[in-house]
């Protein structure tokens, strides 16, 4: 296990998760993850992508997210790791809609940020989301990310143009996971 949180744990992204990912990528969640993409992904296509990623593993980190009772609910990771700039782009995908808005994604995010700063020695982490995604925008604010810019009409999603929002968190702005857990009042739940 890589991180033990209040609601979830981060674990190796193994076969248990891969088996579910096909369903997740063809479900509603992908629209939010892929900033407006609506994909139709075959198992073969997915397996090919994952093999290619393994060949190119130095630039990324990926964890499975599972609840405290061991249910796999999604993935979280860091892409575009830049070793000498010490930056990385965060990516997260809770594939099971039943677990949205319950604090599970936020708990996983706090674990990942700790990993990025304390183990990978990154200086800053960043991500982008579309202006339709109120859930992630609220989460960014809660966790202390700063909005660094707005790329106007940068994604076409469900019949309209939407902005892409650029968020970042610098290491010297991060009070540490324990402080955030307390501030957000994250507690174990059923």
């Amino acid at each position: 296990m890589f991180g033990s949180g209040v609601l979830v744990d981060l674990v190796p992204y193994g076969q248990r998760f891969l088996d579910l990912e096909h369903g997740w990528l063809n479900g509603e969640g992908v629209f939010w993850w892929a900033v407006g993409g609506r994909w139709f992904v075959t198992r073969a296509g997915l397996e090919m992508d994952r093999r290619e990623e393994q060949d190119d593993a130095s630039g990324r980190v990926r964890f499975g997210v599972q609840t405290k009772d061991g249910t796999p609910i999604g993935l979280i990771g860091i892409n575009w790791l830049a070793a000498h700039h010490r930056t990385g782009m965060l990516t997260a995908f809770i594939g099971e809609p039943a677990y949205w808005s319950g604090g599970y994604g936020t708990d996983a995010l706090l674990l990942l940020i700790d990993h990025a700063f304390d183990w990978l020695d990154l200086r800053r982490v960043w991500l982008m989301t579309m202006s339709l995604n109120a859930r992630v925008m609220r989460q960014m604010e809660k966790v202390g990310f700063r909005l660094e810019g707005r790329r106007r009409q940068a994604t076409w999603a469900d019949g309209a143009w939407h902005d892409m929002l650029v968020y970042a968190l610098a290491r010297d702005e991060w009070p540490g996971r324990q402080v955030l857990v307390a501030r957000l009042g994250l507690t174990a739940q059923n």
Partner: protein
Amino acid sequence: MFEGLLVDLVPYGNAFQQQEHRWLNNESAFWGTAGDRLIVSRAAVERWQTERQDDGARPDGGSIWFGIRSKAGVPLGDIELGYISPHHRMSMIGVGIGEPEYWGGGYGTDALLLIMEYAFNWLDHHRLWLHTMGTNVRMQRAATKVGFHEEARRRRFWLADGQWTDDVIYGLLRQDWPGREALVERLGLHPRQEP
């Protein structure tokens, strides 16, 4: 070929590929790569050129490369559309003038105007974007001059020559683009004596 006032955009062929090893090892690479100082072998350059050709054939996420040639026929550098997204109808402009004596003379600006027209009028782009280091004042001035807006400033993003520098992202929507002719006139671009 797209004909400008100071430069033409031409296929990125042999005449340019032969210069690329020198361009990637001189000062222009520092600005073109956002702060890297590359020490690149000929073999590596050739491998990248081959990969780029394969990449250009992909329907999504590919790139289109042009050589920038001065009116006197000198290969000056390259300009390209990268991360082309057909359904979001946008791409990222990358541009490099590999010959420092041509910097600050309007050559890159002229090339930008040509590729903007290509993206909007031929590829039906909705939006263009580019990014550069906070310390790259020349690129920022050029982007602003041709109508790009600063959309994001990512604080202390790059380590370049011992300094942390911002990453500045610029965007331009087609609805804000007045057309190439209007920009040529506004900027007062005209042919000049080459270095």
